């Protein structure tokens, strides 16, 4: 296989993911409605109750809407990663996964193509959300939009790889509801997406520790800083290491079935 053949494969997989995304017309809508409800309803209601004092990377007092925007962007990426996982489970149940696994290209490459396609779709949805968020005066520095691209890509890779790993652990489509309860909600609520961790520390120390060990908190902080053209090194390292770790596990989970592994 030469580079040109690899490029055919890459664009073929990405194109299929895009076509499937376009086929599911409500997917974009629901991907946007969810965070917008949080932003327009939840955040507006809590704005008066929750003040956010000056904190990094913001140089001044900010509104609650401003605070939760990076968390909601990560929520979009998280849901998209899980949607990709759902699509893999569907592919496996429908049989089309076999087609992918029978390709002569290395499986890590094929899975990387899928991850990149998922990341691009996440990126598009996040930017549409950020555009709509401007309506409620969530302003981001213009260069911040650009600086956020690599951060969103890295986060999308991490959450996409997590989705791939989960897709191999979920044996039936019906079990996918469990992902909502045991992965998406805990990851999102036990993070700095909705409230700063120091506030959480005041409320409960053990909750604070849970949030602090949640890699999703670092995704949120990585993006929060990137939107202000700053690098949160700790968050970058945690998200990068988590991405590598989860990706390796995901790759191994797609190895051919050996004896004694019925499924």
């Amino acid at each position, binding site marked *: *296989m030469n580079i*040109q*053949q*690899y490029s*055919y*494969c890459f*664009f*073929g*997989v990405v*194109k*299929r993911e895009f*076509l*499937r995304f376009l*086929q599911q017309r409500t997917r974009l809508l629901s991907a946007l409605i969810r965070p917008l409800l949080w932003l327009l309803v939840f955040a507006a209601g809590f704005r008066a109750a929750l003040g956010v004092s000056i904190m990094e990377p913001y140089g001044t007092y900010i509104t609650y809407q401003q605070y939760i925007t990076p968390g909601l962007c990560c929520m979009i990426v998280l849901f998209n990663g899980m949607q990709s996982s759902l699509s893999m489970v569907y592919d496996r149940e*429908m*049989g*089309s996964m*076999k*087609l*992918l*696994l*029978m*390709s*002569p*290209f*290395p499986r890590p490459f*094929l899975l990387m193509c899928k991850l990149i396609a998922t990341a691009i779709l996440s990126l598009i949805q996040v930017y549409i959300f950020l555009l709509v968020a401007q309506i409620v005066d969530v302003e981001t520095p213009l260069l911040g939009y650009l600086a956020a691209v690599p951060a969103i890509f890295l986060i999308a890779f991490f959450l996409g790889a997590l989705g791939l790993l989960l897709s191999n652990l979920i044996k039936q489509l019906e079990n996918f509801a469990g992902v909502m309860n045991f992965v998406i909600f805990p990851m999102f609520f036990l993070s700095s997406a909705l409230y700063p961790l120091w506030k959480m520390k005041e409320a409960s120390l053990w909750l604070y520790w849970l949030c602090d060990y949640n890699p999703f908190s670092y995704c949120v902080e990585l993006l929060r800083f990137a939107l202000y053209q700053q690098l949160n090194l700790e968050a970058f390292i945690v998200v990068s290491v988590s991405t590598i770790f989860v990706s390796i596990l995901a790759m191994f989970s797609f190895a*051919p*079935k*050996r*004896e*004694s592994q*019925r499924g």
Partner: protein
Amino acid sequence: MSILVRNLSYNYGHKPVLKDLNFSLKAGFNVLLGPNGAGKSTLFSLLTGLFESSQGKIRICDFDLIEQKRATLPLMSVVFQQSTLDLDLTVKQNLLYHASLQGLSSEAALTNVEGILVNLQLIERLNDRVRQLNGGHRRRLEIARSLMHKPKVILLDEPTVGLDTDSRLLIIEHVRELAHELGICILWATHLMDEVSGEDELILLDRGQIRAQGSCNDLCNLHNTNGLFQLYHKLTQNPELM
């Protein structure tokens, strides 16, 4: 030799599913006949590299399937028992997706498959969604797709399941012609005896073991039986009717 299998066994847990299989297949139309549960689909999963066994060897066109997998996979194609088409994509989009997974450009893929699509009466349906096709057309599309990268070996796992008699006969005749025209090795797995003709090379698989291999007519003569039905029951003593 197109397919060579030596001492192949496979277990699900402690339950043996395939026991010490040995066979070899040349170019042409070959039938793997066995009742449901005989181990046909497991054998196909092993022949396609989706499963790996620690016991035995599989060689496809003289390449070791496990050790030279990336050289072997482009030489083969599979039509699985369960459809692997994306129902929400069009016929053309499905073909091009498969082509990309084989490292083919869109142009090369469509050129390779154009004649086959004409023969299978699918050329006018390129822009239809697969969901709009009936079962027979979907199977034909999968067969056309399997030929797109010009494989040397095609494995078809019960490709006529759920089709009416006319569609079944049309597909099987077309595949027989392809085997002769293109000089490729076709392994057609089925549990339906009416899909086997006297000249076909036959592997009789029963409860994970090969009971006989050879031309269907020769096997009937050798075992002094009057047709495939008798041959099957004589060799397998399996009460399950097919």
